[in-house]
Every structure is written in C-alpha cells, then in structure tokens.
C-alpha cells in the first residue's frame, strides 16, 4: 500500500472563531477540515463548554506542509493576542494524495 506524507495541523481555540477559521483555511489552500467540540483548561482558566460563550473547538486540517505553515501563521497573527489558542503540527501518512 502506498502512503504519502502530509502535515496535520491542529488548532484548539474558542468556538466563536470557528466561522473565521473555516473561511481562512479554505482561502489559504486547505482542501478540507474537521471540527470537534472539546473542553479543557489552561493558563487563563477552564472552559467547560456548558454554554455559548464557554465553548471550545478543535479543528484538524490535513494539508501540505507549506499550507499548514501559512494557516498557522495567519491564525497566530490574527487571533493569537486575544483568544485562547493552541496550535500544533504532526506528520501523518495518507492514502489518497490528491484529496488533501
């Protein structure tokens, strides 16, 4: 089975940003994304996701390394100073290269 290397970019942030993130990642070249509702805590307190203003999302994007860099840079510049934000990359293997 042939596998192809890609980047997985994971963005964990406030749910209020979801629409802007979706708009941004598509514009910057991602072919798709997946969003989960999550909860957790950090230096600024805990977010339990019990109601509207307390919701947190985790967005996963599989794409080429340069696209992942562009998206991360954009998100950090736009929202890094005002929103709770966690970003990380991972190397993943995919089966259908064109899909991502």
């Amino acid at each position: 089975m042939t596998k192809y290397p890609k980047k997985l970019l994971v963005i964990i942030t406030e749910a209020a940003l979801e629409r802007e993130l979706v708009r941004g990642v598509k514009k910057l070249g991602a072919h798709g994304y997946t969003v989960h509702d999550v909860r957790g805590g950090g230096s600024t307190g805990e977010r339990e996701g019990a109601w509207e203003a307390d919701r947190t999302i985790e967005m996963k994007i599989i794409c080429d390394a340069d696209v992942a860099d562009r998206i991360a840079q954009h998100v950090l510049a736009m929202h890094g100073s005002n929103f709770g934000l966690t970003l990380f990359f991972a190397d993943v293997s995919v089966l259908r290269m064109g899909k991502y």
Partner: protein
Amino acid sequence: MIDVVVLFFALGVFARLVKSDLRLPEALYETLSIYLLLAIGLKGGIELSSQPLLALAPQVGATMALGFVIPFVLFPLLRVLRLSGVDSAAVGAHYGSVSVVTFAVATTALARQQIPFESHAALWVAVMEAPGLVAGILLARWAQRGAAAGAVTRWGTLAHDVLFGKSVLLLLGGLLIGAIAGAEGAAPIRAVFIDPFKGVLALFLLELGLVAGARLGEVRRFGVAVLVIGIGVPPVLAVAGALVGVALGLSTGGVAIVATLAASASYIAAPTAMRIAVPDANAALSITVALAITFPFNLVIGIPLYIRMAQALT
C-alpha cells in the same frame, strides 16, 4: 415569597460551590434555550394577533432607543471605575442588550402576583437585543481610535449574526407563528409550548445556576469593581426603563417589564457578538458582571424591586 424557579437557580449555584458532579448535557441546555425562546415568542404572538400593529410602533421605537442609549450612559461611569475603554464599551453592550431569562422570570413573578402586563411584551425583548450591541461596538471603535487602525467591523456579518442568530430568529419566529395561528390555531401545541413553560424555565435556571456558580471565583479575581457594577448599575437602568414605560403609557406590569429589560444584562447574544467584534475586550470581565452578579441580583432582589417601583409610578 421567593419564586420557585429562583430556588432552582440557587440549587445550581450550590451544586457548583460544593463541587458536585452535577452537569446538564450541553444538548439539553441547547434544547431548553430553543424551547424557551420559541415559547416566549409564541405566547406573545398569540396575543399580538388581536392587536392593531401600528399602535405598537412607539413602543418598538422607544425600547430600541433605550437599548441603544444604555451603553453610552454607562461608558463614562465605567471609565470612572477604571475599566479600559474597550471593556467599558463591552460591558455597556451587555447591559444595552437584554437577558431573555430575566424577562421570563419577571413575567412569571407578575403572573404570580396577578399583575397584568402587555401580553406582547416578547416583542420588546426581540427588538432590544441588537441596538445595545451596535452601540457597544461603536463605542469600542471610538475608544480604540488611532490605537487599532487595523480593527475593522464587519457590520454585514454582525447584522446577519444578530438578526438571524438563534435568539432573535426564534423570538420573532415564535411571535410571527403565534400571530398567524392565533389562539385557536395554536391550541393544539399549547400542551407543549404554553403549559409546561414554568417547569422548563426552572430546569434552565438550574443549568444557569451551575454556569453562574462556576464564575463566582472570577468575582474575586476582578475585585470590588465588578460587584459595584453588577449590583449598582441594574437599579439605575431600571429607573430609566420604568420612566420610558410610564412615558409610553404602559400598564403597571408593562412598566415593570421594561424596567427589568433595561436592568438586565445579556449573557448569550452579547458575549458572542462582542468576542468577534471587539476581541481585545476582556470577555471574562463582561460575563462575570452579567452572569455571576447582575443576573442573580435581578432574580432575587431586582425583579421584586422593579415591580414595587412600577406600582409606585403607575
């Protein structure tokens, strides 16, 4: 005698304080809030079907103006309390907008005391949701002038979010459905949307108690200023609201409701709108004031007080 629904709120806060594992599933919270908004709208709409619509125009105009003016009045007061410009604007927007649940509790308090009120009052709630948010954003832009040249307000997106957001859509949708169906047409759904209202409200208040209880710790973090704002601001705004109600020639119950709406702070529409439009405002500060202090204050002390005030004024 304290209203039974308020006791549910107290139970929620207590559960948080003793670190109980009690949680209501988020899907239930969502369901209950959709139910309450629709039910409030429907109830108002059924009554609206027997009203001349044009006669309501002054009420709509005046309540909208009230919501719009509130952030401007609060801004200098909050600045005196050493809140930053954007925070003053954001907190003002929360007060300019309204809390639907506070409204619901006020109507049940009036009903319990058998004080009649304008049955289309839900219409005031629906139209008062947005103007305060717009005023808050304008103030924030003004406070940021020069400092944040990059800050752009996407007014189109904001208008879309507020007008077609859950609260206004369901309130106005319910009003419209109720108005079209009338009492007779709505009779088959009474058993779901009208009769169990208070029980559902009680359950929702249990959930809000849990949420508000979780934020009580934040009060300590922000100190005395949030207490002064959260308890000091509502009665002042209530007086302004009551005067508007009297000027409109509303009934005693109606005056109490407009006073309550003016005194209430939004914790659903406002936090979301402000987070996007004014991201550099401290969201935790506004939410703590609105939900952890003003909301319980209005529930326990404010609403009975505003009803008394309305009785004295009318």
